[in-house]
């Protein structure tokens, strides 16, 4: 797809020091006894027109980050600076709800479950047209026209608009969900695992559609996923999360060719290769993701890391630039030529 990856375009979104702590309460008086640090000081920039992948295992905070950007969750601290269409910079994290509302048109979401995210009692016209109605397009004729156009855009026939979601397959429903997200003409689309519920043969179609829509409509994507090969396929840059923190961030090609954090390398090794001649690595990650309410000392990854030394147990590493544009949270990022070592 011939588009300029968002290398030098201006930022659209600037997330700074984002934190979300969920309280743990106990007893009759719901006394707060601790906090789950679901997102713990996450900062990154999303440039206009790029696709940023947010990857990690369940519980790493990737969904909490994406929901905080949409203010579906109130962040505990931090800023989500958004560059609006008219050139203003606003903080989505602290804006009053009423002021936020007009901006909601510009930031939309695609959900994971194509069966749960559409209202089964509403026709496609109403499902896809609802964002239009909410945003003040009252005339039915106008809505019908716009919905027809949206359905064509995602590869569905406009005649379908009077049917209900149950008449459609998983892949078609995901297309409907995409049409709904595009209804208000958004600039930023947050897609939370948009293809993980789909069958292989349909997944490829939806990925191609997302790539095509992005270049056609100049969309910016935040793509939340656990499937590395999907992220690799669709994203310009990738951010890897572990226990609420970013552990690596960089251009997709660079991160996949030379990961600078042992967790990223382990994550890549864990993906089963669809080739029986490539033996799966036995040097895989041991243990489990730690409890985010009581993370380990020092580097959160050290109990599972093959390269861990004393320093990793004592001292928490910072996210730092290892190579231009490539960040990693590891004391030994430079020294570990990770992929060669396994």
């Amino acid at each position, binding site marked *: *797809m011939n588009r300029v990856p968002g290398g030098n375009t201006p930022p659209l979104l600037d997330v700074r020091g984002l934190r979300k702590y969920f309280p743990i309460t106990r007893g009759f008086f719901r006394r707060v006894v601790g906090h789950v640090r679901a997102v713990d000081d996450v900062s990154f920039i999303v440039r206009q027109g790029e696709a940023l992948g947010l990857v990690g295992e369940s519980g790493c905070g990737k969904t909490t980050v994406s929901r905080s950007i949409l203010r579906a969750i109130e962040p505990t601290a931090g800023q989500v600076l958004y560059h609006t269409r008219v050139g203003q910079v606003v903080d989505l994290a602290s804006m009053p709800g009423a002021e936020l509302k007009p901006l909601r048109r510009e930031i939309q979401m695609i959900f994971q479950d194509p069966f749960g995210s559409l209202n089964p009692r509403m026709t496609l016209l109403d499902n896809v047209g609802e964002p239009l109605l909410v945003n003040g397009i009252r005339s039915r004729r106008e809505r019908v026209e716009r919905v027809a156009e949206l359905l064509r855009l995602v590869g569905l026939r406009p005649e379908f608009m009077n049917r209900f979601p149950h008449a459609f397959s*998983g892949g078609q429903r995901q297309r409907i969900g995409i049409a709904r997200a595009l209804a208000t003409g958004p600039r930023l689309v947050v897609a939370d695992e948009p293809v993980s519920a789909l069958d292989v*043969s349909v997944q490829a179609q939806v990925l191609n559609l997302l790539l095509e829509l992005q270049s056609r409509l100049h969309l910016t994507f935040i793509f939340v996923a656990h499937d590395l090969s999907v992220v690799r396929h669709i994203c310009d840059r990738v951010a890897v999360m572990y226990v609420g923190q970013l552990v690596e961030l960089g251009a997709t090609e660079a991160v*996949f060719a030379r990961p600078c954090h042992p967790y990223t390398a382990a994550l890549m090794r864990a993906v089963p*290769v669809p080739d*029986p*001649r490539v033996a799966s690595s036995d040097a*895989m*990650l041991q243990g489990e993701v730690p409890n985010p309410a009581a993370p380990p000392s020092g580097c959160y990854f050290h109990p599972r890391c093959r390269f861990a030394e004393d320093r990793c147990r004592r001292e928490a590493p910072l996210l730092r630039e290892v190579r231009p544009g490539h960040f990693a949270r590891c004391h030994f990022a430079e020294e570990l030529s990770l992929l060669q070592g396994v």
Partner: protein
Amino acid sequence: MPPTLTAAEARTAAEPLLSVRDLSVVFALDEGTVRAVDGVSFDVRPGEVLGIVGESGCGKSVTMKAILQLIESPGHITRGEILYRRDAARPRIIDLALLPPRGALMRALRGAEIALIPQEPMAAFSPVHTVGQQIIEAIMLHAHRRHPDGHPITRHAARAMTIELFRDVGISMPEQRVDAYSWQLSGGVRQRAMIAMALSCRPRLLIADEPTTAIDVTTQAQILTLLRELQRKYDTAIIFITHDLGVIAQMAHYVLVMYLGSVMEEGPVDDIFHAPKHPYTKALLRSIPSLYGEARSSLPVISGALPHPFNRPPGCPFHPRCDAVMPQRCAHAVPRLQPVGIGQQAACFLYHDPAEPA
């Protein structure tokens, strides 16, 4: 097995543990009939991992349920045999398809000689009993698997066996974990406990139904390694059902590719991935995004969508989406499985004799 035997030769050398022949399962619903499994045949040999791969609605899970006689009404087996070869008992070969699902023999086999690792261990374990209690119960119920002389196993001994099993599947602190409830365990440990339960009665055939689909990729890698190790250690035959081609490539010796209730292609794992013959297998392999492929390129796709089970296309079930379709043949007749290599078969008219009447 001597190393000179090819995989295909070794396969035919051993007598199959399970032979499924022309199995058909139909669900008679008010809206219409669904042919969930339509004339499926395959063999599982001792010590072999048979992978069944396919997308949703291909019949892979229904096949598994048919073997265990767990098909719920309105579904029923309409045709075919499920021949299971026992090691000592008489008669030696029994047809599971004819057994009453709730009868004594089926209940003696299920969970004991033929065990299941389900997809969702959260749903499979009872939340009001500890995982230990549930495994101990299985061991005591099927005591003859460990003591063929009919000697019962005491609860105390069964508990010790359970702890040993937990150690075997890599659960840390097994003495404590045995008394945990399933909801107290993490996803990975819960699936390990499920594997321990499936292995508790030393099954001869293990059916793993998407055992790693609900868990994270690093945990999945651990569970797959564990299953490979246990398979080698106990030489258990496994039917491994998944939609993930990567998992199949890493686990299976022999692969069955299913689509809409029929076997499209079968063969040794290397041939399926390196010399696929059926257009569906080829298209499926092309459409998976790779960790090493070209980024941001358009993926080759299979056109169209999976048909609704009520609207099964006539002829070859894949023909409306096939890029090598021959309209005059494929839409009118169902291709049979044809040999296309050593131990490899494909159900496609491309490999039929062109002179043969369709």
